[in-house]
């Protein structure tokens, strides 16, 4: 149609057409390969096994049992008038009973070593929304957050896309198990200053994704001291806190603040979610816990863009206030994750592959650098591709996590059955065996 060609097409915004959503990285491309050829034990045994998705399926049965036994209460919340409240409630404060249940759950996970005030909890539809929302509040477009590498690839999108904020990476090294050092923080800060970028905060993930390890107490103290010295914010994303294999090995920033008598705590904000610890990503339940009144108020208002359905709040309020259930769930979940971790570490070791020391999360951080043709990002991507297409395993390359050393990969182990994990380990074993035999 000739007329159509003459008309200028209607333009979209810069945000809409930008690549900052970051979804063109291998992290997401691997998922595509999985989507096109997903492994199934019976119907597609040679399909791609998804080891790039940090989802917790090891404890589903416990949730199923609970909901099966408590369905009425769960759907409406205990006692009537459950339905009406459910249906109409859309206050951005969130249901008080749900906030109380969440605060209690977060305390349980930390073994009672920290206390949480339900009125400081702001609810969001997932941690993804919580991180973006905090960034909108703490930083102006062009400002930066310091984020230790390697970090969750989704941060490139969640922290930067609509907010216009920047990420300045804080480099870590395998030589000390990728721990954050004050020196690395200072270096990152100086780099930002040199580029004329205003640093507004540090964003940590503790336990770390993709490392699968908790941050040591002394390191947390150092990071808090650094943030105080520079007078910037500290965001602690603790969504894997309930997935630490041994409860005592996790220290929350909340504990450190408590030990310091909450002095100077207005710069600290914690993000939590039920997607990982409870294995309920589909429910879209996230929360911001802030020690800063202004942040709480603003975040609450902003949460109107990302509210949790009232029905979901009711359902979970019931479940999370059942202390007997949560106690048992948390304990069993930790044990099962630990067992899985030990299984995969042993399996990888048998194949001649070492991982960094881990004690939490739904994944391990695997070192394949000896296999690289060239110790470069390109070499890593090439290796990743061959693992995806030949071995049919979707694992996440360290470069998509901005790791400073090539050759590291994140391998998820909790989003599948034990049998499937065996199959995956076998494939890895064969892959390593084949590489030993000289090619003809």
């Amino acid at each position, binding site marked *: *149609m000739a*007329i*159509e060609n003459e*008309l*200028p097409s*209607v*333009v*979209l*915004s*810069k*945000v*809409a*057409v930008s690549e900052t959503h970051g979804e063109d990285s291998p992290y997401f491309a691997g998922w595509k390969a999985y989507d096109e050829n997903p492994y199934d034990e019976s119907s597609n045994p040679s399909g791609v096994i998804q080891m790039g998705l940090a*989802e917790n*399926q090891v404890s*589903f049965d416990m*949730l*199923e*049992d609970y*909901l*099966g036994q408590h*369905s*009425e209460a769960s*759907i409406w919340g205990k006692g009537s008038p459950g*339905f*009406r*409240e*459910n*249906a*109409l*409630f*859309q206050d951005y404060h969130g249901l008080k009973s749900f906030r109380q249940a969440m605060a209690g759950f977060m305390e349980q996970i930390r073994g009672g070593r920290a206390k949480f005030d339900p009125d400081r909890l702001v609810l969001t*539809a*997932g941690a*993804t*929304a919580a991180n*973006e929302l905090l960034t*909108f509040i703490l930083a102006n*477009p062009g400002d930066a957050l310091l984020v230790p590498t390697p970090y969750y690839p989704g941060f490139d*999108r*969640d922290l930067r896309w*609509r907010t216009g904020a920047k990420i300045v990476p804080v480099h870590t090294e395998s030589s000390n198990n990728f721990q954050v050092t004050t020196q690395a923080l200072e270096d990152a800060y100086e780099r930002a200053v040199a580029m004329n970028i205003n640093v507004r905060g540090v964003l940590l993930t503790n336990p770390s994704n993709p490392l699968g390890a908790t941050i040591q107490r002394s390191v947390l103290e150092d990071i808090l001291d650094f943030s105080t010295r520079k007078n910037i914010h500290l965001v602690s994303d603790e969504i894997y806190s309930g997935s630490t294999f041994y409860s005592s090995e996790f220290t929350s920033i909340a504990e450190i603040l408590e030990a310091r008598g909450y002095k100077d705590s207005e710069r600290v904000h914690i993000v939590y979610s039920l997607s990982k610890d409870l294995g*309920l*990503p*589909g*429910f*879209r*339940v996230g929360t911001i816990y802030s020690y800063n009144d202004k942040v709480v108020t603003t975040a609450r*208002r*902003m949460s*109107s*863009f*990302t*509210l*949790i*359905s*009232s*029905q*979901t709040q009711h*359902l979970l309020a019931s479940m999370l206030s059942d202390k007997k259930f949560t106690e048992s769930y948390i304990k069993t979940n930790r044990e099962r994750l630990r067992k899985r971790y030990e299984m995969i570490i042993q399996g990888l070791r048998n194949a001649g592959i070492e991982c960094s020391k881990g004690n939490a999360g739904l994944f391990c951080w695997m070192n394949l650098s000896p296999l690289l043709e060239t110790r470069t990002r390109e070499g890593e991507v090439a290796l990743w591709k061959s693992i995806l297409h030949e071995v049919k395993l979707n694992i996440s390359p360290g470069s998509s996590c901005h790791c400073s050393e090539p050759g590291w990969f994140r391998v998820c182990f909790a989003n599948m059955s034990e049998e499937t994990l065996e199959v995956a380990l076998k494939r890895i074993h064969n892959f390593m065996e084949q590489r030993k035999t000289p090619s003809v």
Partner: protein
Amino acid sequence: MDENKLTLDLVEEWFVENAKEAILGGGGGGGGGGGEGEELSISGIAAYQPSHGLMQLKVAVAGFMSQIMENAVSFDPSLMLLTAGANPAIEMLSFCLADSGNAFLVPTPYYPGFDRDVKWRAGVEIIPVPCRSADNFSLSIAALDRGFNQAKKRGLKVRGILISNPSNPVGNLLNRETLYSLLDFAREKNIHIVSNEIFAGSTHGSEEFVSMAELIDSNYLDRDRVHIVYDLSKDLSLSGFRVGVIYSFNNNVLAAAKKLTRFSSVSAPSQHLLVSLLSDTEFVQKSIKNNRVRLQKMYVAFVAGLKQLGIECAKSNGGFSCWADMSELINSYSVKGELELWDKLLNTAKLNVTPGSCCHCIEPGWFQFFFANLTERDIPVVMNRILKIISCRIILPKQFVIDTGEGWAS
């Protein structure tokens, strides 16, 4: 209080009878190996879902939207995105269609929430396009054009028009002719149109509702510039469930907005419940019909009540409220006068009404009264309270009015 409680009882009835099955699946706990049983089991609803909504729910919502628009248009589920409510939908479109510092033309009076949804984080300016009581607050293209030119003079780039149809707070329906004129205008200026149709199922009275989608159906040229927003909760009394819709014919907008839905997804168990509810066609039909009948009744009764107090309302054909002219009853014909009366209505009469200035109405003295969260029995109570406030004003000179906090001592 823009809630619709009028069909709450019907929905409640449905839930009591059906919801447990809907959320957990028949036989509980993923018994059957079949696809449907699995989807409704805990593992089906717990796992990561597409952030822009389950296809099943989109299909159901598309059907529902078509039904409430009297089947004048059919909606394609693949052009739909689901969001946690309508306000993130408006915000997402603001991010996708305009850059920070650009502007949208918005007819006034408009829903106060737009200031937050469009301006706050997306940084898009709103250029108000005034509508006047003289022609029942109808939208004129001439006014749009003036707004466009004013923006240009201020150095603001207009990227789109945001209309509400039925409008809020007035409750006007935009007729076919006006919609075509809007399209012409948008084409001429090469800008977008966002049509906020969240009250489409809440029309009452005799006028015909025409969706922008109906015009675009047969018009290939303008498809890329039209985007529709809908809100399931308005018509189903389910505001707590948070289900908004972006419907667009523009693949680029869909692609960008799809990625943004990550920040604002609908909870999976809620989605599953809604799939069940919407597929109960008998219930849906009953609900749509009842909603309209009850809204009509309440609207007529409420307007009549106000008329008895000497308060006229703008002619409305949709929504949960009426738009009342209390300009004769304010101290001074100004925003100050209006807010003084509002203060009395809120704090003395304890009626939560919205003053016209919050809606950017250029004529002072108009107020938005919500009636959809009331029953017929409440109307005389409301009217009584209003009477007490205004009789203090009209009958007695100011020096004889003693404000005891109850508003009617003299």
